[in-house]
C-alpha cells in the first residue's frame, strides 16, 4: 500500500526536487540506502560461503515471526527479528548435530516457518494488508520508528563486520585455515548466521520475504562480473546496490509500480546489461582482429 500521493505530477520541472521533500520518500530513500549498504556487503560473505539458500530460507520463515507480532499486537518487525535469529541459531545447531545436509535442514525450517506464518495470519479475520506488505515489502510505508530501528541495527551490524572483517573473510575462504589462525570458527559462524538473519528481516520492510534475497545476491554477483580485486568488489557491490535502490524507488514511484519488485528488476536489468557487456568485451578481446598481440605480430606494410 502506497501512502497517498500529494506529490507533484511526474514530468513537471521540479517534480524530482519536490518529491524528495516528501517525508515518506525521504524515509524510504534513507532506509533503502542504509539497507543497500548492509545487505549488499553481507552478500559478499553469503556468495563466498554459498549461503544463498540459507538467506532465502530465513527470509521466508521470518513471515511466522511477523505474523506472531501481528496477532499479539506487538511490533511485527521486532518479533520477526527475534524469530528469525532463533531460527538461524537452530539451523546452525542442526547443521552441527544432525546427519542431514544443510540444504535439507533449511528446506524443512523454511517451509515450516512460511506455513506457520500463513496459518497464524489466517487466524485474524478479514483482509490482511500487512501480509501483502511482509510478502512483497512496502518501503514507502516505513515509519520513523522503523527507520530508527533499521539505522541503529544496520550500524551495529556494519560495525561488527568492520571489526571482524579479517576473521569472517578467512572463515569464508577456508575453515581449516581460520582454525589455524586462532579463530573460533563455530563462534563466528553462529554470529554470522544471526547477523545475517537480523539484516534479512530489516530488508523485509523494503522488499518483502519473497524478494529480499535479491539485494543480498544481485549486486555482488554483478560486481563479480568485472571486479579484479576484493577491494574493487566491495566498493562496486555497495555502489551498485545504492544505485539499484535509488533508481528502483524513483522508477517505481513515477511508473506507479510495486516498489520492491521494481528495485529487484532494476538490479536484474543492471546485472543483465553488465553480463552482456562483459561477454561482448571478452568475445572481442579474443577475436584475432582485436587482439593487441595479433596486431603487434602483423607485418608492417
Amino acid at each position, binding site marked *: 500500500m502506497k501512502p497517498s500521493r500529494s506529490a507533484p505530477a511526474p514530468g513537471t520541472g521540479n517534480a524530482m526536487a519536490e518529491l524528495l521533500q516528501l517525508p515518506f520518500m525521504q524515509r524510504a530513500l534513507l532506509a533503502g540506502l542504509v539497507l543497500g549498504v548492509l545487505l549488499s556487503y553481507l552478500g559478499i560473505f553469503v556468495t563466498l560461503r554459498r549461503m544463498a539458500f540459507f538467506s532465502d530460507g530465513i527470509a521466508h520463515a521470518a513471515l511466522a515471526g511477523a505474523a506472531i507480532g501481528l496477532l499479539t499486537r506487538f511490533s511485527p518487525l521486532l518479533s520477526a527479528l527475534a524469530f528469525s535469529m532463533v531460527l538461524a541459531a537452530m539451523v546452525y545447531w542442526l547443521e552441527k548435530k544432525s546427519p542431514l545436509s544443510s540444504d535439507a535442514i533449511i528446506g524443512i525450517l523454511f517451509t515450516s516457518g512460511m506455513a506457520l506464518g500463513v496459518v497464524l495470519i489466517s487466524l485474524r479475520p478479514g483482509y490482511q494488508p500487512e501480509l501483502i506488505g511482509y510478502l512483497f515489502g512496502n518501503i514507502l510505508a516505513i515509519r520513523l520508528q522503523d527507520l530508527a530501528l533499521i539505522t541503529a541495527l544496520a550500524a551495529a551490524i556494519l560495525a561488527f563486520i568492520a571489526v571482524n572483517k579479517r576473521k569472517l573473510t578467512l572463515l569464508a575462504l577456508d575453515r*581449516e585455515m581460520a582454525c589455524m589462525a586462532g579463530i573460533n570458527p563455530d563462534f563466528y559462524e553462529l554470529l554470522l548466521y544471526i547477523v545475517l538473519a537480523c539484516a534479512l528481516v530489516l530488508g523485509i520492510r523494503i522488499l518483502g520475504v519473497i524478494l529480499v534475497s535479491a539485494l543480498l545476491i544481485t549486486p555482488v554477483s554483478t560486481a563479480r562480473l568485472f571486479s579484479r580485486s576484493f577491494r574493487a568488489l566491495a566498493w562496486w557491490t555497495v555502489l551498485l546496490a545504492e544505485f539499484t535502490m535509488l533508481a528502483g524507488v524513483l522508477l517505481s514511484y513515477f511508473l506507479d509500480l510495486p516498489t520492491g519488485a521494481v528495485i529487484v528488476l532494476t538490479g536484474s536489468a543492471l546485472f543483465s546489461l553488465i553480463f552482456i557487456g562483459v561477454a561482448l568485451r571478452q568475445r572481442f578481446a579474443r577475436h584475432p582482429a582485436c587482439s593487441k598481440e595479433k596486431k603487434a605480430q602483423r607485418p608492417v606494410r
Partner: protein
Amino acid sequence: MDPLLEVKGLSVRFAGIPALENVSFTIEKEAIIAVIGPNGSGKTTLLKAILGLVPYEGEIRLFARPVRQVLPQVGYVPQRFAFDPSFPLTVEEFINLTCRTPEKLPVHGALDEVGMGEFKGKLIGELSGGQLQRVLLAHALLHRPRILFLDEATSGIDIEGQGDFYSTIQRLNREHGVTVLMVSHEISMVYKFTDRIICLNRDLVSHGETRSALTAEVLRKLYGENADFKAHGHEAVPQRPGAGHGERHG
C-alpha cells in the same frame, strides 16, 4: 632437552571407525619429516590431530606445550584450498586479509621467499596449482613459523613444480631452521628431500631416518607386494606401485 614434537598413544575414530590407532613417536630436532602410507592410512588425520582440527585420544605436545598454545609458531599448507576460484581476490589481498597481525615477515618478503613476488597483483583463481601452493606456503611463512605442516602440498602439481616446491622447503629448513612435517605420496621425492620418515597404515609401521627406515620390506608392508626399489643411476630409489611414470629421480 624436550622433544620438538611428542605424540603418545594417539587414536582417532570417525563415527566409531578407527582412522589412527595408538600411534606414538617423537621428533627430537629440526628436520624435514615425511609421513607416508597408502590411501586411508591416516596420514592427513595424523596432521589434523596434531593441529587440533579433529578430536583425538592420546597426548600431543609441540615445543613441550599443548599445540593450541603454540599456534602462532605453526604454519600449515592444506591439501586443498576450499575456495571459490572465481572470487576476485588478489594474492596480496589474500595474504593481507588472512594473516594474523602484526606479521613478522612483510607480505612481499613472504612472497619473494617462495618465488611469487611478481604475482602479488594476480587473482588467486588465475594461479596454476603449483603457484597456488606457493602462495599458501608464503601465507604459512608470514609469522616465521618454527614448524610447517604440509598436507600433500604438491598433489596436482607437475614434476618440475614439485621439484621446485621441495627445493624451497629444503632451503627453508637449511637456512631458517624450520622443521617440516609433510604428508606425501611422492616416494622418490620423499627419499630425495627428507631427513626422517613416519610410515603409517592406521598404526605406526616404521619411523626413523629416511634412508634406513624406508626399506623394501616397509614399502611392501605399506603398498603391497608390487612396491619395490628401482635402480636409478647410482642409487636405488623406492617406488610405490604405479609411481614409475613421470617421476623425477635423483
